[in-house]
């Protein structure tokens, strides 16, 4: 009789890394639906294109590194990176933009650092920031939400969208320029010298919104819903996202300034515009690149929230989640050093770099 020799524990919970990634993918759906509803097929095309490139790149690199390809693909982490990048890119962005971004995210930001678990920077955000810096124009060209389009102008259908993304498929029957427009954050930034109320009145993005920013509010609520579900599924803890949202809210409230002409915008506008919720629940929660302990994640999340506000209001870019996240990726090891939990039987927490007493 020969029995297996194994180290305890002999049982495992059912949750696997693959499942974790699948949950994350699933949780993006509400946000994706909202995006597609408001801005057309562009995001879906982004995601599909990015996923293909990501999986291909991952396979090629894993093969190059002489590792079992299928084993590494099955963790689905490349797919998650691709989906997050696809969600973040402007809909109907030219194909090469998506391809370059994905190549950069998987090839450089992930595998150059040793692959999953070893990358200090969030790959999707690295891809995004590289594109934003290199190609600012296509990266800041957003679509006007479906219902705010001028009369007679429609969002392109699927085939037209494909033609816009891949010009090789022939000229689209519709000019892209006709459907592009500002995002709420752009709009807010451009109207300087006006009271918040005046901006709201001048911009249909605000005036026709249910809550604060037309179309975007639903996108953000969609990601919020997905995120809450993930917390419920224990894929990650509440610490980092909640801290980030609180940080952002606090800053917005502090500098709201009664809606004067120097106001940075209301907290609710900041929460429901741009990439706030996508960032809070799908980027900030990336476990690999965030701080480790619960306390650390509170610090990490809150810092990102504050940075997002600072860059949005006082920086040159209308949105800031990517920059803020990358900056805090830098700081994560430092945060870790000072936020070790207090271990059982110890009167206080130690520092990671502490020497033997």
């Amino acid at each position: 009789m020969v029995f297996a020799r194994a180290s305890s524990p002999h049982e495992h919970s059912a949750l696997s890394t693959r499942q974790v990634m699948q949950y994350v993918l699933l949780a993006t759906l509400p946000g994706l639906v909202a995006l597609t509803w408001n801005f057309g097929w562009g995001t879906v095309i982004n995601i599909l294109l990015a996923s293909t490139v990501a999986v291909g790149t991952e396979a090629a690199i894993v093969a190059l590194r002489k590792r079992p390809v299928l084993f590494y693909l099955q963790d689905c982490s490349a797919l998650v990176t691709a989906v997050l990048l696809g969600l973040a890119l402007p809909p109907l962005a030219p194909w090469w933009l998506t391809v370059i971004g994905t190549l950069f995210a998987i090839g450089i930001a992930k595998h150059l650092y040793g692959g999953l678990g070893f990358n200090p920077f969030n790959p999707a955000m690295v891809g995004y920031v590289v594109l934003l810096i290199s190609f600012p124009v296509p990266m800041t060209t957003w679509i006007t939400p479906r219902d705010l389009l001028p009369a007679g102008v429609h969002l392109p259908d699927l085939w037209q969208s494909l033609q816009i993304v891949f010009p090789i498929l022939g000229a689209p029957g519709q000019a892209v320029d006709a459907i592009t427009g500002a995002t709420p954050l752009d709009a807010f930034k451009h109207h300087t010298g006006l009271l918040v109320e005046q901006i709201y009145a001048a911009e249909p993005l605000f005036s026709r919104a249910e809550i604060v920013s037309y179309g975007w509010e639903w996108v953000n609520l969609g990601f919020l819903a997905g995120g809450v579900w993930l917390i419920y599924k224990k894929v990650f803890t509440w610490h980092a996202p909640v801290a980030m949202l609180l940080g952002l809210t606090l800053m917005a409230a502090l500098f709201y300034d009664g809606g004067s002409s120097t106001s940075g915008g209301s907290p609710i506008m900041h929460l429901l515009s741009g990439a706030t919720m996508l960032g809070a629940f799908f980027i900030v929660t990336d476990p690999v690149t965030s701080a480790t302990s619960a306390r650390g994640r509170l610090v990490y999340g809150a810092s990102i929230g504050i940075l997002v506000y600072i860059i949005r209001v006082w920086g040159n870019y209308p949105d800031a989640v990517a920059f803020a996240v990358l900056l805090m990726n830098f700081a994560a090891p430092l945060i870790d050093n000072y936020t070790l939990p207090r271990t059982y039987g110890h009167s206080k927490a130690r520092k990671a770099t502490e020497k033997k007493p």
Partner: protein
Amino acid sequence: MRKIWDIPGGIHPPENKHQSLTDGIGTIAMPERLILPLNQHAGAPAKPLVKPGDRVLKGQMIAEPVGFISAALHAPTSGTIDGIADQPVPHPSGMSARCIELVPDGRDEWCDHQGVGDYRAQPPTALLELIRNAGITGLGGAGFPSSVKLGPRQPIDTLVINGTECEPYITADDSLMQARAPEIIEGVNILRHILGNPETVLIGIEDNKPRAFEQLTEAAEGTGIEVVEFPTKYPSGGEKQLIQILTGKEVPSGKLPAELGIVCQNVGTTFAVYNAICRGEPLISRITTVTGQACGRNGNYEVLLGTPISHLLAHNDFDAKACTRLVMGGPMMGFTLLDPAVPVVKTTNCILAGSKAEFPPAPPAQACIRCGLCAEACPASLLPQQLYWYAQSQNHERLEAHNLFDCIECGACAYVCPSRIPLVQYYRAAKGEIRRHDAEQLKADHARQRFEFHKARLEKAEAEKAAKREARRLAAEAAQRKTATSEAPSSGPGSADDLIQAAKARAAAKKASPDEQKAKLERSVEANRNRLKIARDKLAEGRDQGLDSDAMAKLEVKVNEAALKLKTAEEKLASFDDTSPGKGDSTVADDAASRVMDRVTASRREQLETTVASLKKRIASAEQAIGAETADATIAALQSGLEKQRQKLAEAETALAGLGPDGDQKVTDPTTVDAASAAIARAQAKAAARASMTPEQKAREDLHALDQRIAKARDKAQAARAEDSEHAATLESALEKLEEKRRGLIEALGAEPEETVPERPVAESVPAPSAVEPHPVPNDDPAAAAIARAQAKAREMAAMTPEQKRRVELASLDERIAKARSKLDSALAEGSEHVEALQGALEKLENKRRSLAQQDSDGVNPEGGA
């Protein structure tokens, strides 16, 4: 209602307890053979009391505990000892160890045994002894000898009985609590009595055992024992976790619960204590759960220790083909068995024969995604992902900063890890690695300390020598100065008084050394005692944490080593107290010193009187000589000599007559005193140094001195022969004598270095005190002898006028210069390396002589004649 605290982390794996909880506690047919490992517990293996062929009765002790942390072993049934040999034992490594094999005779015949009538009438120590002799160890998985855990040094205010049994599948304690609640409660009462009736007595049970809770609550009614139920969560049953749940307190890292005034015992152990005290039955069986899908039947059984697991499995319709993993213990912390022939031991709470569906083969580990699920599950609030990271990179410093050693290896982190990383395995390996590393470090540190100590000793010896040289130089200088200037008593630095004081102080310092030595020995005993305590604590803690037996074995070895060292240190101290070496030496030195001082500082009147007397004598003999002499020239010479003597006598008598009332005062001639006190200092230093030596060391030192003298004597003899001197023969015979002495000394040393070497084996090797005046100082002591010589010299000097002294000094200097010259010549001839040194010495001597001669010719007469 008692407040229940929550523990951080924890998991809820499927319980799988119902399978084995069907019908109470069953029994198993007697196996053909019982295998009883000598080490079923934490600590030293028991020592067999039987030999093959012996017939033993049920309950008879067949192996006794060795040392403090160890446990006895008893025959589980009557039968014949078949052998004592190495057999595979239940251990994660699958190792073999010494086991007693017993072939049952089927009669199951008890030895004489009976319980203690009223345990409350017994002192706790007696009960602890009974528990120790009953071979009771923790039955909850740790196996730490219960008598040790129940006899803490700290006062105990809380007794916690662990009925948690939080691991999935296992129901041994549950079934025991259901079936034998009154006995368990009685056992708790016994433990209470032993621990001095702690205020709070708690039995902790998870809420998935409602029947056990009911039974115990009922049985505990009116006893003051609180039965506490709390929510099921793994690992609530860990000792530290249970204490936190029930009391809200945390056992400080690296400490035992006793530090908090808490003792924790498992319900199974409590039942065993009841059996031992009330029924007189030692620990020979235990309740074991047999479960898992590869067993057709699941259940709990009262199993004799030593029953082969294969026998147990066969009884439960075991399907070997269906079994992929055979685990002893639970699925979270149990270890796999490779061979089902291993026996049930005291810590076997469960045999889990898992099927493929239950324990599918582990998938390959994926990368850590740092999801933090592990950290959320960790009951010790560690960061398992960081520990894993640093374990991989072998970063020991970071591992310790992340409190690796507070990990209880519960496996909660590995259970939840979505990447299926065998985290616990990494932690065990890292812990082992760090322990090894620390042990090596410790060894290296000891070596370094030894080296430094050695160096310090050498330096100290060197410093002492230098100090002696300095003292001698100072004495010589002072002597010169005094002679050169006036006789007026001086009290400046380097004066006689100072020197005497200094010498005394030095001698006193040296004398203190036996005391110091004793203090050192005492300190060493204390340190070793501490070390032993630490080692024991570590062992206890290790056992609590469920260290694998490899690590435990190492800890045990440490404990034994520490105990041995303590013993040696204690013996040393004891023997030191007995002999108090050095006392005699220093006393002798003291006596001698005081005698010298008496003489040297003899009053002026006494000195003068002596001088007068001796002069008178000399004059008388000179007169006689003149009377007998016929040659004129000679007579003239004699007469002039006589004249001089007479003159001196007159002077001395005048001086004596002129002595005032203070003439009786002591300490006259500082020069004399100086030289004498320097010599005294030297002698005392030497004596004191010897006082702190063992006889052997003394003998060795003597041998060394002898060697030096022999070398010198040889040189001299050679030089004499080379010069064809008349002294050659004398020198050679002296050399021979020295060599003979040396042989004797070596023999004495070699024969029995500790005992037979006499305290002062080379007494004769020291020249007898100067022939000038035989002296009562015991001449078997080199120090005393040296002092005697110094005294003699001092006396001589005291009797002389300064001029005479100078002359004597001059003469001796001349002699030394001559010697130095001849040495230098022969050194030059041989091209010896010492030429330079010799030249330097010669120069110094010549300088000295010059300055002395200068004084002489200057005609300074400091004393105005004496």
